[in-house]
């Protein structure tokens, strides 16, 4: 204790993708401050897109060079390992694709502060004003999404959680149409999100009380040496779990998802449904596998119930939905349940876990890209008052616009997990991992894992019903006389749908290259 504070070592090279995104976000704020209004959009768009693609290139360079650090970077705060890099790559692609959609006209409100339906709103709209802040906000959110699954201690993770969530709370309230719904969504998301953050923080504090450290590695070590039934640990585990499961929308913390997905501007919904889910599942994996891995006897039964409940609630409640975005939200809940099956597929020998990890990573990649594609299609089917959100409006779309309806039907079949789509292999990989872990000798949870997979299969069958119902509407029903119009898609939206379609078809036919990528990313597991 001589009062000298040593400067921390920061591995700038390894952290470069993260720094680039955050740097561009800060730059974006400066653009907002200093660039004239008419130039902002012209500056923001290339800045945002280039920084995301640049960060993606940096990730690729790191992977190709292949010398990953053995320990966490930034004094043990950020773990840049195979899974983290994989998730970074996925998040960056997704966000770049979503930015293409965000750039389209007509999604965002002209003046968020104007009361809905007021004359100020009309004036702002007539003047063509717009909120260009969305670009830096998105960049901050993406930075948070990258840091969240890579955080190696609970405090960094909490900061990442907030950096990711705060911009999203705002972005949710900026829809141009159905503004009251959008503002309600924003408020709801903010309040519930704040609660869940508090849970997370309180849990982190409890675990600190038990382990004397917030570092995941340290917690894991402390679990090896002391009693596993310490009340502090148990409470901490439960609270931490609540905070994390809220973010992936697992039941019983799923209530925000339909409201928020419905209210938010569709490009932002796409970003949340893909990027946030990927990041949050990554964080769940890191906390439960690295930090609390030795405690799996305690959390697996609870996780079992959560996964089962999530799948059932997601697939059953989706049946009753009449709003296309709410339906996709419930579908997203069901898929979060499938992913949790993968989270539970741990083995006694750590080496075997890489198979399960690779399955989850694969699932995340294919599911999130299909999701973005589906929401991109949603943005194109328009009524005079905005998107044609009511399902009945989609009747007969197959006649009006066979290509668009065909593409959407294909995405739905991928969600349902029909073979020869990417979604099938995702589901297959996760189920196999879970059954494999259950069959491990001496595992008393074996039968339970098989039961969970059977439940997952039944949930898939139920889920297939509402996906198919949309296909029936689009193809087998007569179109309404005053049916929705199909907006002429911008280049960006065309690009989004094309990328999503190519991945869904391509991976559906030849999954091996992507599997190789996921296997490679998962081979080293998480660094500790």
């Amino acid at each position, binding site marked *: 204790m001589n009062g000298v504070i040593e400067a921390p070592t920061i591995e700038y090279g390894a952290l470069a993708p993260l720094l680039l995104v955050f740097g561009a976000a800060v730059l974006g704020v400066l653009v907002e401050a200093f660039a004239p209004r008419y130039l902002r959009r012209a500056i923001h768009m290339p800045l945002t897109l280039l920084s995301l693609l640049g960060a993606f290139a940096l990730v690729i360079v790191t992977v190709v060079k292949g010398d990953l650090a053995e320990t966490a970077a930034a004094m043990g705060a950020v773990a840049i390992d195979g899974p983290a890099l994989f998730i970074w790559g996925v998040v960056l692609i997704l966000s770049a694709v979503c930015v293409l959609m965000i750039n389209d006209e007509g999604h965002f409100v002209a003046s968020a502060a104007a009361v809905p339906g007021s004359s100020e709103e009309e004036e702002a709209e007539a003047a063509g004003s717009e909120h260009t802040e969305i670009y830096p906000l998105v960049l901050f959110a993406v930075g948070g999404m990258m840091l969240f699954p890579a955080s190696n201690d609970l405090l960094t993770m909490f900061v990442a959680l907030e950096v990711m969530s705060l911009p999203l709370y705002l972005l949710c309230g900026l829809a141009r149409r159905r503004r009251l719904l959008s503002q309600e969504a924003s408020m709801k998301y903010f309040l519930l999100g704040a609660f869940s953050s508090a849970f997370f923080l309180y849990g982190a504090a409890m675990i600190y009380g038990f382990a004397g450290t917030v570092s995941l590695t340290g917690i894991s070590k402390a679990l090896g040496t002391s009693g596993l039934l310490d009340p502090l640990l148990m409470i901490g585990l439960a609270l931490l779990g609540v905070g994390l499961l809220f973010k992936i929308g697992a039941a019983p913390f799923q209530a925000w998802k339909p409201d928020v997905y419905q209210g938010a501007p569709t490009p932002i919904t796409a970003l949340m449904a893909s990027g946030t889910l990927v990041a949050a599942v990554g964080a769940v994996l890191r906390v439960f596998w690295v930090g609390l891995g030795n405690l799996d006897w305690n959390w697996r039964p609870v996780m079992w119930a959560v996964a089962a409940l999530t799948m059932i609630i997601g697939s059953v409640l989706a049946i009753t939905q009449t709003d296309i975005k709410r339906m996709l939200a419930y579908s997203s809940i069901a898929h979060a349940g499938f992913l949790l099956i993968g989270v539970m597929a741990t083995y006694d020998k750590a080496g075997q876990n890489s198979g399960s990890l690779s399955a989850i990573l694969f699932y995340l990649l294919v599911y999130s890209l299909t999701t973005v594609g589906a929401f991109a299609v949603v943005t194109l089917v328009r009524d005079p008052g905005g998107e044609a959100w009511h399902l009945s409006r989609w009747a007969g779309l197959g006649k009006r616009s066979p290509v668009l309806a065909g593409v959407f039907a294909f995405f739905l079949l991928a969600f349902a997990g029909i073979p*020869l789509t990417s979604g099938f*292999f995702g589901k297959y990989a996760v189920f*196999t991992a879970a059954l494999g872990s259950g069959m491990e000798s001496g595992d008393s949870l074996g039968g339970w894992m098989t039961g969970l*997979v059977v439940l997952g299969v039944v949930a898939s069958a139920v889920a*297939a019903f509402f996906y198919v119902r949309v296909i*029936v509407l689009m193809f087998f029903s007569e179109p309404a006389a005053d049916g929705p119009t199909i907006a002429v898609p911008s280049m960006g939206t065309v690009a989004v749908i094309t990328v999503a379609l190519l991945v869904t078809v391509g991976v559906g036919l030849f*999954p*091996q290259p992507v*599997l190789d990528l996921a*296997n490679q990313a998962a081979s080293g597991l998480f660094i500790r």
Partner: protein
Amino acid sequence: MSSLWLPILMAVPVLGAIVVALLPKGSDKAAKQLTLAVSLVVLVLTLVMAFQFPSASGERFKFEAVYDWIPSFGVHFGVGVDGIALVLIALSAVLVPIVVLASWHDADGVRTADGTLITPKRSVKTYFSLLLVLEAMMIGVFAATDIFLFYVFFEAMLIPMYFMIGSYGGAQRSYAAVKFLLYSLFGGLLMLVAVIGLYVVAGKGTFMFPELVGVIQDPATQKWLFAGFFIAFAIKAPLWPVHTWLPDAAAQAPAGAAVLLVGVLDKVGTFGMLRFCLELFPEAAKAFTMPIVVLAVISIIYGAIVAIGQTDMKRLIAYTSISHFGFIVMGVFAMSQVSQAGATLYMVNHGFATGALFLAAGFLIARRGSPHIADYGGVQKVAPLLAGYFLIAGLAGLSLPGLSSFVSEFMVMVGTYSSPAFGSGALTVAAIVSAVAVILAAVYILWMVQRALNGPTAEPVKAFKDLNVREVAVLAPLVALIIGFGFFPKPLLDVINPAVTQTLVNVKVDNPAIAEKGAGQ
């Protein structure tokens, strides 16, 4: 050593489907002709392959080709045929061009006699493109020697059929299509769990069928996995009590699609029982034989009785099929050489006979615009050719001696009656009870014939034109096959028998324990 026969056989219809789908708007006629040409090419290729089959190399599976598909999962693109698969592929290849011809105007929209539109005009090229995709998948599902590949085709082939029913079917098409899809999908997903379970328990790191035969030893595990596969196949076949989707789907589908649905797609269920349920899980199959045979007998009797009560021609034919599938399932699980060879032959003959019946009924319905038997009467006087073909197809449905289905039904009953397995005599009882269906079959077929074809000519029927050249070209080959194989089934049986023998070896029914039991009766 891999043969390119089967991959080419699947690639030709796929390429054809892509070309048909990409034809410019308004080239409906070209789409039909191209589809017919492609399906005829497939038929010729299949026949050439079939004639080379006896001399081809390979022990169990011939024309084998195995390529890595997804090494991470141990999945191969593995194809090859034994005698059972070969005759079913040939059945598909024969039926598709016939169905193409029969469906010539199906997508053009159907009008009733008084001019109301039942089904609106739909995209013609999409229909025929789907038909070709379906053909590729039908060949693939029978040829797959990799269980994962089989599963992929098993599920994926639902999608083209779903769209064929849903977009081109009758008034309640969308209900029927969804019911069909959900039933099959649910069964398929249960099978998926069993497929994964098989992979994990076997621990071989491969899905190749030959390497997985006899690997699972533990009886309890066998039973669970067997159940997963069997439920999927029972829904597909369909067996009572999971049959309810079939009458709806078959009645609402356009006649051509109904032929492929009942004639080929449903055979995947019984084929799967014979190939996968029996050979992969022999102990479980033996343990479950009695309950399954009971279900089969219920199907036989129930299907026949309900068929008698139908007023809708297509529903009636669908229920007769449920009865016939009961026979096939009984033959498969009676586990004797004669019963299984008979069941396999039944799969082929049923495809021809029911196909002919559906198509003949379809021609009737196209003329009158109504599927109800009561709307007809006296067709024979107005359209003797149509009535004649309808009668022959109907007689094949009731297994008249001299027609092909008689041979197979007789083999199934005799094989079950005298099966050496399970000496308890229960199979003998099952065979005797099922024989009742022969009488019921005469009732449902002849009564339909009597009401629709004979008697005073109904007013709207008087305007009927007899079969045109296209329609004769559809029915004549089928009737020729029905009569030909009725008198001379040997070529088919020569191909089927060795494959059945191999199946029984893998099921080990000739092991001492069972032989002893058999001797004790």
